[in-house]
């Protein structure tokens, strides 16, 4: 039993890291703009299709493809903020936080992207058979056998690399100062000469760029399909709320907790009951600590 739990713990940590990597961008976007980006999963899916195209057409491995796809997704994120979110924010003039119209427009965008890809690619499940996806990390000691794709290990590590990169940009750069200022009080930041909406666009771009990097890791071991975003998008919301809205370490911690609960829980109860546990955990967190484990009231 101990072997099983230990194995499940390791698998859970690996899976949780991947969840955290995907959720990071969402957390940053919310922390800065207060916008719950319901198109997050669709953006993830979009990035995986770009990696798929790069691989099938030019043989470019998704890990290398990050150099091409991330800037594109960054610009897409900026454009989304500029042409969809900012006009609504201006209309609201700051009278409400996270208005329903913002939720609906990102939700609509998510549906539109998913359906556009369904129209273009159909519903087939595609895989990117790279070297990392086909090579395994195996640890065998007596009866104890741990084996997993290297790509899952890389996805786990990516969570910390993405998290550190975002933390560095936000806390150690001039741009980060503006982002933090806008996050804390956009009106005061505006008075100090910060272009609030441009900063929002940059933050949105960063969040989407982060999910593009996570998308590369995901596409190395999971399939590429227009509805992939639904699964990971929903989980990302739960993880971000659990870890703390706007908190970078919170997103990783939330992901790890989700992964561990799912995997270890399934060793004691059925898998479907274990999936339910994560939702119960989410609800408990909403009651006892609405700002999440490492939340600072939604600020980055």
């Amino acid at each position, binding site marked *: 039993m101990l072997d099983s739990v230990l*194995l499940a713990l390791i698998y859970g940590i690996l899976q949780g890291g991947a969840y955290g990597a995907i959720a990071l961008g969402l957390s940053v976007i919310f922390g800065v703009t207060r916008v719950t980006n319901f198109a997050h999963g669709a953006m993830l899916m979009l990035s995986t299709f770009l990696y798929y195209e790069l691989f099938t057409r030019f043989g470019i491995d998704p890990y290398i493809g990050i150099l091409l796809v991330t800037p594109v997704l960054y610009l897409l994120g900026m454009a989304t903020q500029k042409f969809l979110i900012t006009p609504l924010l201006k209309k609201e003039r700051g009278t409400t936080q996270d208005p329903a119209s913002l939720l609906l427009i990102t939700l609509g965008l998510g*549906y539109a992207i998913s359906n556009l890809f369904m129209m273009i690619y159909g519903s087939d499940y595609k*895989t990117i058979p790279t070297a990392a996806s086909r090579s*395994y990390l195996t640890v065998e000691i007596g009866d104890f*056998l741990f084996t997993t794709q290297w790509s899952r290990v890389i996805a786990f590590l990516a969570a910390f690399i993405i998290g550190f990169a975002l933390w560095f940009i936000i806390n150690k750069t001039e741009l980060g100062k503006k982002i933090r200022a806008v996050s804390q009080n956009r009106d005061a930041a505006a008075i100090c000469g910060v272009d609030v909406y441009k900063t929002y666009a940059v933050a949105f771009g960063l969040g989407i760029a982060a999910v593009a990097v996570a998308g590369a890791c995901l596409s190395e071991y999971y399939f590429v399909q227009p509805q992939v975003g639904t699964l990971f998008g929903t989980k990302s919301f739960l993880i971000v709320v659990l870890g703390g809205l706007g908190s970078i370490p919170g997103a990783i911690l939330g992901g790890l907790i989700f992964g561990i609960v799912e995997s*270890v829980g399934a060793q004691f109860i*059925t*898998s479907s009951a274990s*999936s339910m546990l994560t939702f119960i955990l989410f609800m408990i967190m909403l009651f006892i600590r609405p700002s999440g484990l490492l939340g600072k009231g939604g600020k980055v």
Partner: protein
Amino acid sequence: MQTRKHLRLLTLVIVVLMAATGCVPQTVAPAATEAPTQAAAATETTTTDSADVPVVKIGFVWPLTGNSATIGQQHSDGALMAIEEINANGGIKSMGGAKIEAVVYDSETSPDVGSSRVETLCTKDNVDIIVGCYNSAVTFPASEVAQRYSTPFISMGGVKNEITERGYEWVFRVNNKASYDVAEMLKGVDLCLQASPDTAAAVEADGGLTYALVYESTDWGSDNARIWKEEADKRGWTCVLDEPVTSGQSDMSAQAIKIKKANPDVINFSFYTNDAIVFTKALFANKINPRLGVWSVGGGSQDAAFYKACSPAEYEYSFVQEDWNVSMPYLYDWAAKISEDCYAKNGYYITSFFAQGWTAAKVAIAAIEAAGTNDKEAIRQALVNLDVKLEDCADSHIILTGYPEIKFDQDGQNTFSSGTIIQYQNGVQIGFSPLSAATPGYSPIIPIPDDFATRGSTSKPWGTAPEVK
């Protein structure tokens, strides 16, 4: 002002994109939800030549988005090609060459949506007969709606026993019910034991056969597991793992650990395509090798998309209960021709799902032809009296699934439906049960070799025809 214009334009683009694939949530654009998802295509293929020619409307509800989307698409492809064939050959002859119009909706793999689509077909589209909905969890409530509106409903794909066991006179099922599926698999396990007496003796020496059930937790998977357990209990087999799994997993290593610990002789799983891929990869990664194999009750393991996503090594030696006679394209020229046409049009040779969509549409058309009218009660009566034999299908091409016959019992169940148990050997589907669908010269490979290092290295691509010995 400029910003508002941009916003309006973007909103319009979003709504058009969503409406085009029929996924507009009702709260956003209720009118668009009423647009058939493939109305344009359907209308294109079924346009009448003149206003005098009557039109017969058949409604279809398939999962075109969601977890079963690839499967639903193949059902839909089959049904629409069957209708094309009829329309191209003069339509419904008993109705003066009436053309058939297909109205296709997406169930989104959701019971609520599927039921609502059936209601729309009954009340707004006024279709003459409905075919659907693949997923048991969708078909079960959706067929109840058809019953309420006294509209003939042909269930295709849904195996939950109770779909045809509620005393509904408007509901018919062409394919297997869950108990037939399980019976075929258990018979297959028996054949494996007979084929390898040494393995049978080893199983006996270890205290009898053990099995693990791993399944998606909605109607289909749960029903299959329940019936398997009931039947296995009668044989004295021992269940060492009963594991329902919520659909939509991104990793199944946790389930693999449990299976490894339980160490069953047989694993039986029922998953739709997405979970079947993740599960199969997890089993292979963890080198799980039950001596009597991994058995799948169709679902995702019959989907061409599954075989594109998994490597031959990952599915080598696995057993699949296919919901059709896999030898049809080799046994009948007309089936081979349809398979070629399907490849030319859709990019894949016929699969179980295509064959099922085709056969269901053909059964609906045969009933209308026999009724000679689009009066629903007359069509229902024609279904009750329907009796088609495979050997008589050379011209009508009705039973592409290869069932020996289609005839409904008092519950509306086709008692002649049957599938094939196949095993992947060197990447090729080898049928071995029932005998009518067996690939000559082959027998099941039992016990499953422990050859993970080399497995799949010489496998042929999926879809390769077996070399008949």
